[in-house]
């Protein structure tokens, strides 16, 4: 196990592989030295390299601060792969990531065919997780930052202009995903969003991760995290 303030890499023997957009529940304290924070954290697999899984995050709360401070060699529990993951994109489709949501998109971008358009946003250049990795893909990549410190100044969704028949894959803050949904809906395009609700279990038993859809409540951990945005009610957070 190796960790820094915004990411970690750990060996997970027996990991069966996963689809881009699937996630794992990371338990901070499998030996139960502490009983707080109690719950594991859902984290998108940023990248698998051999037997190692990589995760990316920002130290925004207790969980991510602890993840970033783990000593080399510390043990985590890993439950996964969980969730549905993304359907594979086609040429012309859009991958739109904001903030830590970018972590869900790296493998999708890496495995995407030529012609997929990758659009990433954050407050500053430093907030674009894995920027160098994305740049190394040699794909159609554009970046927007709130302060203009990299790429265009403004919202990443200003770089997104889907046409009918295309699909937008979005993961990031709710306002970003809502905007992606609106752009797609207006153009007759489809939009798949990956949601980052609070979770307790990650495997379908607590019902804590419910999201309201046109078909009633669905669970982000088992039915998602990827949903067709047209099934979600975008007025509620």
């Amino acid at each position: 196990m190796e960790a820094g303030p915004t990411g970690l890499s750990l060996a997970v023997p027996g990991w069966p592989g996963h689809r881009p957009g699937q996630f794992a529940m990371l338990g901070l304290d499998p030996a139960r030295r502490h009983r707080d924070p109690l719950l594991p954290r859902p984290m998108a697999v940023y990248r698998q390299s051999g037997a190692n899984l990589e995760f990316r995050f920002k130290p925004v709360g207790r969980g991510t601060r602890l993840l970033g401070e783990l000593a080399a060699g510390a043990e985590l529990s890993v439950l996964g792969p969980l969730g549905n993951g993304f359907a594979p994109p086609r040429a012309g489709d859009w991958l739109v990531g904001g903030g830590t949501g970018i972590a869900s998109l790296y493998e999708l971008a890496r495995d995407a065919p030529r012609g997929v358009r990758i659009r990433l946003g954050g407050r500053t250049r430093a907030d674009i997780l894995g920027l160098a990795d994305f740049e190394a893909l040699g794909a159609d990549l554009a970046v927007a930052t709130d302060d203009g410190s990299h790429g265009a100044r403004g919202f990443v969704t200003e770089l997104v202009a889907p046409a009918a028949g295309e699909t937008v894959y979005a993961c990031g803050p709710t306002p970003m995903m809502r905007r992606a949904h609106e752009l797609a809906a207006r153009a007759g395009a489809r939009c798949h969003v990956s949601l980052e609700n609070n979770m307790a279990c990650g495997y379908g038993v607590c019902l804590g991760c419910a999201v309201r859809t046109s078909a009633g409540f669905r669970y982000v951990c088992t039915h998602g995290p990827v949903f067709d945005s047209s099934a979600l009610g975008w007025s509620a957070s």
Partner: protein
Amino acid sequence: MSAEVDLRTSLGAVALRNPVLLASGTCGYGAELAPFVALDELGGIVAKSLTLEPRAGNVPPRITEAPAGMLNAISLENVGVEAFVREKLPALPAGTTVVSSVFETEIERYAEVCKRLDGVGRIAALELNASCPHVKSGGIEFGQDPKLLASLVRACRAATAKPLFVKLSPNVTSIAEMARVCEGEGADALSLVNAVQGMLVDVERRRPFLRNGLGGLSGPAILPIALRLVWQARRAVRLPLCGIGGISSGEDAVAFLLCGASAVQVGTVGYTNPRAGIEVRDGIAAYCRRQGVAAVRELVGGLREWGPED
């Protein structure tokens, strides 16, 4: 001592392979856990509480973390009694001991759910979730009012011949009074406790974290409260008790057994590890081996008092 520990126990007429059940609302309908756990190696599972009709829960957010625990207001979302019997129950491995939790907002409806489950062979016992607000009494929990609780148990007792467990609320002045009411009305065992009522506030947004405002506090934080309630109930009634609240290890479970519980349920900690129930079972066995206890039943109620010379 390397001999096998005899883990068998019982809750009234319900014989259990070992003392560890999974708590209602924390193991779904069982099938969700099948990828991780051989359900028939547990003492049993208490399925998600069932209502007469399918029931949608609260609008999210429904959960948030609390110190050494979590706060939830799922509001008892479930598929309804019919779908449970038709679809969920048959999916469980034979040999799984299934307790069905029953929940409603009015007494007649509670009794009706019991009636529907009464003839279902696969169900070993019913557990009345009495920690739910009674609509007609302005939202007070059934388990908070001795008269309401008595009427509830009486009606459900009349509706089923199955072993009837009553799951008590911790949010009461006197658990002894509630326990005696249940005993008087013919309950077969008591499960205690449900989550403790709590609240957490998102100070940046100046609103409760949960849309529902109030929620149920569960997890290790409540263990000392739950253990005290079991101990108090033990002194009030002779009914078998099932201890619930924050259990995360064999030692935690043994503490409940010593205080007088014949079995325990593991809840929230299962969210952190789907094999938690099995690990608690193994922890109980390891404790027994270490302490030279041949049969787990010997532990039940075995708490010693402090002597003057200790």
